[in-house]
């Protein structure tokens, strides 16, 4: 009887401990989200109140409704929606190009396995440990001479500089696929191209998703590469635009800038909440391998 009670007691105290942990974590989680909430609050305030009353909720005097959002889209020398457009173009094109070309290259490398393939593979692995500052100056010059400095051509640069991780991850996966499946396809009369698109590519799907997510996260947020490579007067991306507004400190409307920051965070959060499972998996895979 008493032993039974003891167990019950321990259980309930354990439950209470877990409950209090949940409460503590709920508070921590709320605090964790505060920076984003503060930006959201400030995006509804009039310019002068952003600096003086950063942590206050907007009151009747400072509240301006959606004015900041409307103003933010077009204010300054460069319209923000253009930056959003170019960032989207660059991210989607580059990711598509990296996924297609690198998975094809990885299949070739893993299956043909000649000396040349090995050299390319080890160069790719090597490129993963090279920081961008090492090549930034020469890369910017090279892309200038080859006229790769527009949002439509910069994906080639991203393909070149980002190939390392993608080729590494794809090659690792292709090597784990049994060769017999592809041989069966070849015996049935499939050429390499058809074998690749009908047989290999569908099997690569999980790795395609992981690599795709890693590349999207990198390119969408990348600042220095597009800043140095793109023709700055004509093309801006979201990070370049935000840094440009920050550079003109105080001279620009802070309320409108907050609205722009909200704009630039929303797609990221929507993307995150819709494919959270894949993102967390992809990130973990990239960390373990990279």
């Amino acid at each position, binding site marked *: 009887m008493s032993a039974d009670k003891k167990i019950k007691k321990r259980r309930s105290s354990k439950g209470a401990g877990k409950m209090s942990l949940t409460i503590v974590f709920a508070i921590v989680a709320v605090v964790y989200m505060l920076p984003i909430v503060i930006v959201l609050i400030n995006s509804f305030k009039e310019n002068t109140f952003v600096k003086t009353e950063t942590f206050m909720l907007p009151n009747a005097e400072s509240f301006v409704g959606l004015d900041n959002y409307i103003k933010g889209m077009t204010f300054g020398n460069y319209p923000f929606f253009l930056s959003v457009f170019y960032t989207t173009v660059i991210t989607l094109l580059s990711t598509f190009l990296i996924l297609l070309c690198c998975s094809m290259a990885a299949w070739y490398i893993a299956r043909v396995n000649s000396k040349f393939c090995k050299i390319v593979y080890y*160069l790719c692995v090597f490129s993963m440990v090279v920081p961008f500052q090492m090549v930034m100056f020469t*890369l910017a010059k090279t892309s200038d001479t080859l006229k790769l400095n527009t949002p439509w051509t910069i994906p080639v640069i991203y393909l070149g500089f980002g190939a390392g991780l993608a080729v590494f991850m794809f090659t690792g996966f292709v090597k784990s696929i049994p*060769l017999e499946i592809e041989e069966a396809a070849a015996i049935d009369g499939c050429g390499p191209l058809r074998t690749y698109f009908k047989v290999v590519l569908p099997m690569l799907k999980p790795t395609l998703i992981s690599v795709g997510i890693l590349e999207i996260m990198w390119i969408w947020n990348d600042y220095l590469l597009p800043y140095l490579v793109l023709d700055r007067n004509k093309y801006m991306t979201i990070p370049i635009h935000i840094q440009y507004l920050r550079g003109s400190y105080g001279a620009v409307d802070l309320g409108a800038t907050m609205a722009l920051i909200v704009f630039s965070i929303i797609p*990221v959060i929507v993307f995150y909440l819709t494919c959270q499972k894949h993102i967390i998996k992809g990130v*973990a895979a990239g960390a373990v391998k990279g």
Partner: protein
Amino acid sequence: MKDETKTTPKKKKKKQEFSGVSSKLMRKPMKRCFPIFLLPMFLAFIIGFVYPFAQGIYLSFCKFTTTSNAEFIGIGNYIKALKDPSFVHAFWYTALYAIVSLVLINVLAFLLAYVLTQNIKGTNIFRTVFFMPNLIGGIVLGYIWSMIFDGILSRFGTSILLETKYGFWGLVILMCWQQIGYMMIIYIAGLQAISEDMLEAAHIDGANGWQRLWKVTIPNVMPSITICMFLTLTNAFKLFDQNLALTGGAPFETSVNPDGTLSIIKTTEMLALNIYNTFYGQSSSSRGTGQAKAVIFFILVATISILQLRSSKKKEVQQ
């Protein structure tokens, strides 16, 4: 997970021997498709990496303002770079930041991961929340946090741009906020791989919670701990966007060189930003020095990465 890592090297070897014989059927037609499969990626790789890298190495031994007027001068750039007080300062500042962030991020991330694997309510929501900042870009993060810090510090009549220690701790807080969620995910994966039986056996043998944590849990997540330590270390050394957006190196200090010339030290400037400023600062004549700094930086980062590779390989052998 563990079994996989153990067996893959053996498997690979077998397959390679095999693939030479049995894939003849595919090899020839595949080789004919070289221009479609390998060439596009290879050409882009030459443009985007191999050529700029090789040229970068060459230019570090040259005096130049653009790539066309390079003039070979030997190791002068390297001597200049190592004697540059701002570079030396940036190195020590980065090293200090790396150590502080390494400890803080890993301890806090492990703590969160440990609690979130204890079956408490709302685990999924907490995981979602803690990981979210990781997706926001460095520039935007810098802007958000500089607004918050200035909102607090302006009440005391100061700003994050006015004191080195504010800039330092500001950056540490920012990076903790961004990276704890990421490391937490890796730790959670490691913690979930520990078998319940082992913990239960320790429990039956009379080990209390604390002992179980230190003697069973931590030794078993050692691989995750190594990965996270090296990740935070390389991230700290490569940090650029957040540094640029939060303080941009401010506040500045002038110091007198031994030879009487003045040099400006940006007290919160880290290595990557220092290299960038040497390239694109006021005088384009110091670009040779900048490239030499970049090569030194590359060697530093590459060494850390190679150490990581070695240590993780050793672990695999031991297991």
